[in-house]
């Protein structure tokens, strides 16, 4: 206990509590569903593979959760050499 505490009683616990409440509300909602990002990743991969040959590592799917809205980011790198022959035959 120091002098500052006399004026500022709030510690970091309220922040911890608030972060947990937001996080757990989200996690409980999604508990019964399979991991959305990995499902999306697999299906996107399957769609692309029908047209272009790409490596698993060239597909990045990520989700940035906001409080009211989330952003889904999909980053696909298609190497030019493998894209051409397949694209022509398709």
């Amino acid at each position, binding site marked *: *206990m120091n002098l500052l505490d006399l004026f500022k009683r709030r*510690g970091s616990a309220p922040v*911890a*509590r608030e972060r*947990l409440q937001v996080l*757990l509300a989200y996690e*409980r909602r999604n508990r019964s569903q399979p991991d959305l990002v990995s499902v999306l990743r697999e299906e996107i991969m399957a769609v692309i593979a029908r047209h272009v040959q790409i490596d698993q590592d060239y597909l990045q799917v990520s989700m940035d959760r906001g409080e009211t809205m989330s952003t889904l980011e999909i980053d696909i790198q298609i190497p030019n050499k493998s894209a051409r022959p397949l694209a022509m035959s398709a």
Partner: protein
Amino acid sequence: MGKVVVVTSGKGGVGKTTSTAALGAAVARTGKKVALVDFDVGLRNLDLIMGAERRVVFDLVNVIQGTAKLSQALIRDKRVETLFLLPASQTRDKDALTEEGVGEVIEKLSSVFDYVFCDSPAGIERGAQLAMRFADEAVIVTNPEVSSVRDSDRIIGLLDARTVKAERGEQIAKHVLVTRYDAARAARGEMLSIDDVLEILSTPLLGIIPESQDVLKASNLGSPVTLSDPTNSAARAYIEAAKRLEGEELPVVVPFERKGFLDRLFGRRAA
């Protein structure tokens, strides 16, 4: 049939094994027959906390695989004669446990013992799920800290979905045991309070174990804290928690804040 209680947490290092030993010994001290089962295959430690590490001959995996009888693997405690330990295997991998085998062992134990405490490994994988699989009740060990509370919430979800009781549509009785609670830090708002933890987990409280040197000392000595020195604050908290587990209605007293110099000077109440 005895009661099967899983001691679990999700997160490691929060005090599952310490709590299993302390609660089990506290219940056994009252004359009840108690078996402690270590499910942490590959990383067993309950034998060490119980001070029985040099007496392990057979283990849970031996019993499941039929290379030893249950009665051969059970180790009787030297201090409390109604207390027994079934150690985990140190050498096998965790796939050595089968659901069927675990089910048979738990059934045999619960037909002989009043209480069977299953000390879960950390995590939410197979070992942890097998430890909770046949439980009637669960003690969720939680530290007042964000990652521990989050993992406890996850475990509560598993208890409600993956236990035999839950699959039958019954409710598994769940209790939160808050360990390593530092009253002074909670009063200063540096640590999640008991109310915070209970509100977030919305699960009833079994007890609050204060952060205490005596717990480490008991581990060093290889004795559950409720046996080595039943008068210290941590031991008393465990003994009371054990009574609540047995159905006794005892109010939980939140450990009070040790007052600092300025608090005393101005007579401030804890916020």
